[in-house]
């Protein structure tokens, strides 16, 4: 049974109405182009998992249904179709594999609580979803002194649409580190909404690699609500063909907060004439006791550097690839979890890294 998108969106947990370009948050979104498309609800998924994950702890979801999972008792789990709840009481590394059927509409929500002093390492892999429309909402609560290292890899089908919202609440002295890779998919929208309380810290990093006519949007709202909180938002984009990237970062430093540190940076590499970047770094400051900075750069590959590499016998194609890797290497180096990094490098393959 197929439904028009507006009908599905109205029933979804993420939208109370159909957003328009008049709303700042949706200004650069191509969502309107999909409103006359039809998608199917997938009530029951195929249960076969072709390749079972090799990691120690994992959850396998298809079209928002948990097919199989392997977790220790220290993680309390509840799941229904399209929802998953995790409550972590001990340090753990969990891999979430999310795949999607052709032309499916999936509205999935995950709630995570990380208990005091617990470190959760979470890896999301989004795959499949030919002509699918995916809504994914993560609500995460870090209790005092909790840590979350999260890696999200969007490697969907080239015709998939995915809107992923991350709402992260950081209690005192907690730490959140995220790395998002937006690689494939026709339109990928990765939202972050982060509330920082006393002495908490957030490092939110994204790497957007777009080609053909893809559109990838990285939106990041950071709210400094307590003293001595720290945030670092960094995004890099490598934009090819006629694709477009949007980086919309907004950091709010509220009144009366003290000793806040906030940085925002966006760096784009445009590889073709028709490639586009919209970068909007934005700081809202209502306090005097802070250190904050923001910056945005847009550039092309350095012809002089290509020429130098070629003068040593390296082909132009290889030289360009080396310089693109050089551009993104530092951001990849920032991934602490070696397992996550290995997956990322495998996903990037020879062409990108």
């Amino acid at each position, binding site marked *: 049974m197929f439904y028009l998108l507006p009908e599905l969106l109205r029933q979804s947990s993420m939208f109370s109405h159909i957003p328009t370009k008049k709303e700042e948050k949706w200004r650069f979104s191509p969502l309107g182009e999909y409103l006359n498309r039809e998608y199917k609800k997938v009530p029951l998924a195929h249960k076969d998992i072709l390749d079972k994950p090799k990691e120690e702890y994992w959850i396998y979801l298809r079209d928002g249904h948990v097919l199989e999972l392997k977790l220790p008792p220290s993680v309390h789990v509840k799941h229904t179709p399209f929802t998953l709840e995790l409550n972590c009481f001990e340090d753990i590394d969990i891999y979430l594999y999310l795949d999607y059927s052709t032309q499916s509409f999936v509205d999935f929500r995950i709630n995570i609580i990380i208990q005091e002093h617990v470190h959760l390492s979470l890896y999301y892999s989004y795959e499949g979803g030919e002509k699918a429309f995916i809504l994914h909402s993560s609500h995460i609560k870090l209790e005092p002194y909790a840590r979350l290292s999260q890696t999200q890899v969007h490697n969907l089908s080239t015709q998939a649409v995915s809107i992923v919202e991350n709402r992260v609440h950081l209690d005192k002295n907690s730490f959140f580190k995220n790395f998002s890779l937006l690689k494939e998919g026709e339109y990928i929208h990765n939202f972050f909404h982060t509330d920082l309380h006393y002495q908490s810290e957030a490092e939110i990093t994204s790497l957007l690699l777009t080609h053909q006519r893809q559109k990838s949007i990285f939106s990041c709202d950071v709210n400094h609500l307590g003293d001595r909180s720290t945030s670092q938002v960094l995004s890099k984009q490598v934009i090819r063909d006629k694709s477009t990237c949007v980086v919309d970062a907004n950091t709010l430093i509220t009144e009366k907060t003290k000793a806040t540190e906030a940085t925002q940076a966006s760096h784009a590499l445009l590889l073709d004439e028709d490639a586009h970047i919209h970068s909007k770094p934005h700081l809202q400051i209502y306090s005097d006791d802070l250190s904050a900075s923001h910056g945005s750069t847009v550039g092309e590959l*350095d*012809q*002089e*550097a*290509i*020429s*130098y*590499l*070629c*003068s*040593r*016998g*390296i*082909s*132009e194609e*290889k*030289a360009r690839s*080396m*310089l693109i*890797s*050089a*551009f993104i*290497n*530092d951001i990849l180096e920032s991934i602490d979890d070696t397992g996550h990094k290995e997956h990322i490098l495998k996903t990037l393959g020879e062409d990108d890294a």
Partner: protein
Amino acid sequence: MLKIKNLDVQIADKDVIHGLDLDVKAGEVHVVMGLNGTGKSTLLKAIAGSYETKSKGIMEYFDKDLLSLSANERATEGIFMSFQNPIEIPGVNTIYFLRTALNEQRISRGEKSLSSVDFMKRVQEKMNFLEIDKSILQRSLNVGFSGGEKKKSEILQMMILEPRLILLDEIDSGLDIDALKSVAKGINSLRGKQTSFIIITHYNRLLEYVPPDFVHILDHGKIVKSGNASLAKELEEKGYEDVLSST
């Protein structure tokens, strides 16, 4: 090895070299001297196939038409240019760059790529010879290198790639005496019957360590006077104006 006839070169749409002739045989060391802006660097860039240059005329290298080859094809054929100001490339690790360059050249020539062990052996040997600090291998290419380190890095690349025609653009500029000796040692280690050099320098001091076979004076994009090592000494003593006015 290299025959240049009636070469015209433009750089940024400006005519820099006009009707230049030069013949370099295997094993010879040619030195090109001249005032600033006379076209010395442009000549080397044109031979190396830099994207900045547009060349017209005849440039044959082992009977191949050099002008029809791209920069990387020329490098694969054995042409190496050391730059006056080697560019810094953040994020490109020096050891990775060296290995990629060597193996890309070998593969293009139909040879097997060098194994990690053999490659590292070659690198260590050359680094010891040049007395280069091994830490540069793990650093980004030329990033944060001192002037001397950059020049030594160029010589290291030259020794690893083992080219047949070596173009050195002011390799001696900004070097202290020890670094100069080290660079000269590297150059002389490759000197032989099969390898030729075209060296640009402003000073005679490098030539005390690397005696040239020919010295040419370039003026307004043309070789206006050629001689042996004594010409460089004469230039140092009298200056360009006096030497050229007696031509």
